């Protein structure tokens, strides 16, 4: 059995861990509010952008002449996967969930004999994928310096992807991120952004006949790159809200577990203290009796 001193030390150490997790939970809760707000504020833009693109895509007359970002390269051999994770750990299953989703997709591609390329956004994803897929990772982008998700960063990622697409480095691009549902639920998502899947969500397509200025093709070729950045920005916003949510619930659990541990250790400490006192008393009494 551990000595009294050891127990005392352990109790103090668990208590200070609890203080840290509690503080982290508070910080995450404060940040979550902000991240959630900006995720909600960002939704109208990406929705409107999507609507406009859908209307344009349905209005385009000659499908074969459509920009490649919309119609694809005609092949589907090389897949680019953009895995978006956080830069910091201690957020429960947040990163692990995205990685798991991505990995299952990777192995599916492997079975089909497709070629795989990976871009990781956020250092945690890079750390976890390095071991198994190190040779497939072509770029790692990290925004450790920027405090919140901002459009400027998203545009940078978007430009990198488009540049690579124009060099014909890949045919299909899919992004992986966590969608924020609520504080305890984040749903890992995969979304194909190149070529754009126009048929997938055409429920809000309107029958309106638009006048286009300049013509559809030109607007589309200008708009599609922007849409990529917008989609990535949306993913980043969802991700940052999810990260804070995941961290908050993880830290809440950790705090509760630490509390339970402190209780258990305190009982053990009291018991062994009591036992030591009883033992001493017995020794004194039996010593006195023998006289």
């Amino acid at each position, binding site marked *: 059995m551990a000595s009294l001193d050891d127990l005392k030390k352990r109790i103090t150490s668990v208590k200070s861990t609890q203080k840290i997790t509690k503080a982290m939970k508070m910080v995450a809760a404060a940040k979550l509010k902000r991240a959630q707000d900006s995720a909600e504020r960002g939704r109208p*833009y990406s929705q409107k952008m999507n609507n406009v693109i859908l209307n344009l895509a349905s209005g385009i007359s000659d499908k074969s002449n459509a920009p490649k970002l919309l119609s694809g390269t005609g092949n589907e051999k090389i897949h680019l996967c953009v895995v978006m994770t956080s830069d910091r750990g201690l957020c429960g299953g947040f990163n692990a969930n995205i990685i798991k989703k991505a990995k299952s997709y990777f192995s599916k591609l492997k079975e089909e004999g497709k070629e795989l390329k990976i871009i990781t956004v956020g250092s945690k994803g890079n750390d976890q994928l390095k071991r198994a897929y190190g040779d497939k990772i072509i770029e790692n982008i990290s925004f450790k310096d920027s405090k919140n998700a901002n459009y400027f960063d998203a545009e940078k990622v978007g430009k990198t992807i488009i540049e690579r697409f124009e060099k014909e480095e890949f045919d299909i691009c899919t992004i992986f991120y966590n969608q924020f549902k609520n504080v305890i639920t984040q749903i890992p998502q995969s979304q194909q952004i190149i070529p754009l899947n126009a048929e997938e969500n055409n429920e809000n397509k309107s029958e309106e006949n638009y006048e286009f*200025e300049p013509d559809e093709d030109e607007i589309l070729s200008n708009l599609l790159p922007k849409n990529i950045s917008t989609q990535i*920005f949306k993913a980043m916003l969802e991700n940052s809200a999810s990260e804070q949510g995941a961290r908050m619930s993880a830290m809440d659990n950790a705090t509760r577990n630490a509390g339970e541990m402190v209780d258990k250790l305190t009982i053990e400490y009291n018991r062994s203290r009591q036992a030591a006192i009883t033992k001493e008393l017995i020794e004194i009494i039996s010593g006195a009796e023998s006289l």
Partner: protein
Amino acid sequence: MTEEFKVEIVNPDKLFLSKEDVTEVIVPAFEGEIGILKDHIAIISFLKPGIIKIYSKSGEEKFYIEDGIIEFKNNNLSVLTSSIFNLKNMEKNKIQELLKKAEEETIKTEINDQTKYLIDQKIEVLRSIN
């Protein structure tokens, strides 16, 4: 019959402006300025750098805009843009900063004609408001 319609200007990270009582909007579309009144035909167009003017009951507002797209449908005008500034609160040194950046970009040789045209437009507009 009212002559008013709704305008929404949306940034990637927030709703920049929403107004219900707008009577006329002039936007710098790619092929020239377009004035939009109520019951305009549905239109999608993209913008070049310029000034958006919004006329409403409460007065006139002007915004400097660098890029974006507009969609007008059912008397709803949506402007999607990533860079927009209210001319009223725009400071002189901010304008000069943007102007300097744009001028630096024109010197680069690898840009194509379209971007060059857009940058020239930008410089012209910035100079006019400076």
